[in-house]
């Protein structure tokens, strides 16, 4: 392959020499009328060959790897039993309504947790970066909150909230597993979102604040009108991937007994040891999370529009 490549390059080179100045073709015509020179044609042809070769290699490699996987799996001694236990089409159809109903709970938890997490997270980030003396205790609280809830595993928070809060027997506190599970997820994810927003705030160059202050805006006005809009734009991508992760982690409320997609699948597996419901639940989660991630990617790619200035000086710097 490398021999061919070298040959191709040499051929193009020889071409260029024999035809002398490559520009001569374009000079005669009016502006815009351009016939590619021999040099350009040789380059195009070379690139086309390279592209075709790359496609071929990719296709062959994919076939080999997929074939190997299929061979290994289907030749495994337990394949027959595994196929029946995990991929039974008729069992899948049977459990689909229950698992889908469970997924609806996941979606509701996800949406509520996202909205609350975004609002409170942004608020915490602003608190933490503010310099208003009266807010000092709140700033301390924000720091402690983020430290604690980022530092403790989500599973532990779930168990502590799920079993600890009901033990307080507060009459006004809802004790449904879905509420407590959702609360635990919100507590953890808010801490992460707050940190992402804080990074966004700090990525806005100080010269932007200087410009705003120079125009007479107060510190608060500068934060609200100049810093936050840019900060939020700067972190759209990480925030969105956090929300995708939250969508998956909404399944963790099942350990508190809430009948979400995972719990519904678990209930369906008891008795006959057929694990197809788990696969069904997994596919349903994928059906949501894959389009969601693609959507987020497309959206943050479009966000690139306003990112050009930043691109020059690097992370968030506008100078």
């Amino acid at each position: 392959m490398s021999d061919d490549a070298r040959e191709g390059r040499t051929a193009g080179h020889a071409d260029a020499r024999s035809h002398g100045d490559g520009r001569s073709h374009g000079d005669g015509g009016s502006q815009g009328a351009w016939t590619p020179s021999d040099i350009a044609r040789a380059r195009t042809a070379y690139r086309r060959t390279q592209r075709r070769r790359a496609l071929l290699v990719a296709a062959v490699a994919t076939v080999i790897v997929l074939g190997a996987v299929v061979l290994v799996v289907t030749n495994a001694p337990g394949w027959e039993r595994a196929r029946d236990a995990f991929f039974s089409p008729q069992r899948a159809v049977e459990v689909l309504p229950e698992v889908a109903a469970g997924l609806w709970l996941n979606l509701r938890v996800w949406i509520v947790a996202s909205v609350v997490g975004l609002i409170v997270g942004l608020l915490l980030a602003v608190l933490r970066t503010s310099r208003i003396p009266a807010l000092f205790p709140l700033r301390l609280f924000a720091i402690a909150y983020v430290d604690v809830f980022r530092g403790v595993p989500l599973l532990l928070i779930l168990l502590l909230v799920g079993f600890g809060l009901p033990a307080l027997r507060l009459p006004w506190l809802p004790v449904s597993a879905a509420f407590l599970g959702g609360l635990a997820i919100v507590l953890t994810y808010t801490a992460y979102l707050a940190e992402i927003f804080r990074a966004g705030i700090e990525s806005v160059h100080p010269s932007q604040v200087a410009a705003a202050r120079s125009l007479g805006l107060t510190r608060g006005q500068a934060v609200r009108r100049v810093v936050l809009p840019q900060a939020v734009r700067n972190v759209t991508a990480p925030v969105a991937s956090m929300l995708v992760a939250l969508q998956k982690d909404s399944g963790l409320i099942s350990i508190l007994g809430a009948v979400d997609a995972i719990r519904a699948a678990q209930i369906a597996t008891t008795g006959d040891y057929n694990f197809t419901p788990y696969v069904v639940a997994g596919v349903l989660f994928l059906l949501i999370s894959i389009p969601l991630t693609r959507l987020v990617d497309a959206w943050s790619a479009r966000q690139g529009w306003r990112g050009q200035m930043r691109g020059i000086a690097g992370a968030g710097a506008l100078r």
Partner: protein
Amino acid sequence: MSRASDGGARPGKPDAPLLSLRGVRKTFGTGAGQHVVLDGIDLDVAEHQCVVLVGSSGSGKSTLLRAVDLLEEIDDGQILLDGEDVANPWVDANAVRARLALVFQQYNLFPHLRVLDNLTLAPRVVHRRPRPSAEADAHAILEKVGLTHRARAYPDQLSGGEQQRAAIARALVGGPELLLLDEVTSALDPALAGEVLDLLLALRAEGTTMLVATHEMRFARQVADEIVFLHEGRIHERGTPTQVLDHPQRDATREFLRRLG
């Protein structure tokens, strides 16, 4: 200087220049790393006057302009605006800044706002002006700087010269009493710098009071009532353009001018 006296005394403020710096000192860092950026600067800018600061990079020009706009706290000295010492921390900095306008070397336009919104942000937020009247004013100023057709564009869709003209327009919106210009053309190639300098010459012709830091000596000669040569944080030489640029008295000035070519 002549233009300053032409401007006449403002009622109630007989002889005080619009801006006076007295013994302004500013250092960065502490201990052994301490660096004196401004070392006792005395400077006056009268109404309708234009004072041009020249000097090599690091001579303190930018710091001086930022200090006047209260973006830097000074270590000592006075910054007198209409005779009031605005360097005092109890003075309302926002009120002072609303009377001044600083244009930055790197434009510092707000990238998330359209040009028009860049111009109307301060009127709407600081002065609580309704959007239609703020936009009417902004359009008038955009026309003046030749950017009417760019009002709906975002800053990164503009050329460098257009961005700097938009930044100047944003600075002009509040009708500032003093325009502070910090090397506004040094990020631009000569052609783009030319369109910005033409705009500044027009503003100068209208009698806009300016304190300018620049490396453009031809421009300095055209607009300056007084040229102040800063060297290592001190005023090394000052006078009319003819005095400083054509007959420099000090070695450092000569060296600086020779290097500019």
